[in-house]
């Protein structure tokens, strides 16, 4: 089950904890993977670990010209993009009353606008192939909101609504568009939390632990598979019961 042999997947944010694990899992299922991210070293290291069928495609998603080029580079490297995983995201947290226009805009640009442009950039090939999978990595805070993250939460909610709208438009072409909304996942990003912050968060998670990146990657693999062809416009919440949506 969930064999991706012959499929090519472009994964953004593949230098991060969740993105790298998504790349490993899709690659493990037989896919050729395009590893995108801003930091080349971790991408090269991951490509080295994966061996064959791994391409490093550095891209700064705040640079819209670079974003426009990424799908073309991916197609050049891999022949096609059958699966797109928009995983890259940034945070610029601040209280709403103190949030600058730049803090707002930069988060919306990378998390939402770049996602839109990448979806658009791969759509032509998917429409011609009558097959495509887009998985947008949203967040629990896109559904619940979070103090200090008005920009991030808005961008993540925007990804969900955009996914649903696009899912409507392209469903008849064999293309599915879904979102995965992780809760607290143990990564370098959450390692920076203080023990107090961590225990506070744990108290809100019925499962009593943080999630593992592998638990997100497994969901992406499912949504990217042929078997999930009837699942579209969905948001899969993976949060240990923190928000049962």
């Amino acid at each position, binding site marked *: 089950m969930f064999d991706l042999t012959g499929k090519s997947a472009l994964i953004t944010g593949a230098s991060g904890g969740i993105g790298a694990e998504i790349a490993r899992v899709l690659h493990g299922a037989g896919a050729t993977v395009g590893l995108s991210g801003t930091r080349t070293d971790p991408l090269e290291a991951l490509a080295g670990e994966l061996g064959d069928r791994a391409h490093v495609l550095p891209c700064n998603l705040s640079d819209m010209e670079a974003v426009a080029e990424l799908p073309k580079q991916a197609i050049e490297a891999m022949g096609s993009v059958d699966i797109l995983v928009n995983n890259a995201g940034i945070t610029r947290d601040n209280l709403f009353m103190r949030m600058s226009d730049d803090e707002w805009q930069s988060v919306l640009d990378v998390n939402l606008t770049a996602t839109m442009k990448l979806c658009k950039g791969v759509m032509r090939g998917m*429409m011609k192939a009558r097959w495509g999978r887009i998985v947008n990595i949203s967040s629990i805070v896109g559904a619940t909101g979070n103090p200090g993250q008005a920009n991030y939460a808005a961008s993540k909610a925007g990804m969900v609504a955009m996914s649903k709208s696009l899912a409507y438009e392209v469903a008849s072409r064999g293309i599915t568009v879904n979102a995965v909304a992780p809760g607290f996942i143990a990564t370098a990003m959450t390692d920076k939390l203080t023990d107090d912050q961590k225990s506070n968060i744990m108290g809100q998670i019925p499962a009593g632990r943080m999630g593992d990146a592998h638990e997100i990657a497994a969901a992406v693999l499912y949504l990217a598979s042929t078997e999930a062809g009837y699942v579209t416009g969905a948001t899969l919440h993976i949060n240990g019961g923190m928000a049962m949506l």
Partner: protein
Amino acid sequence: MSDVAARVKKIVVEHLGVDEDKVTEGASFIDDLGADSLDTVELVMAFEEEFGIEIPDDAAETIQTFGDAVSFIEKA
């Protein structure tokens, strides 16, 4: 029929699965040939590839009929 018209007609017939004689000068892709809005986007993509041209979005919106497509491509 011009060479362009014949090639456009072939694409339309193949993509929309309609009879060749229905693809007349004034035939509207949506109203007469059963296309949905996404079909019109795909037709424009197919024209771009067949003729090696770029059809910008605002121009694509003006291509409503078979005749529109032929005259646009002949001028391009």
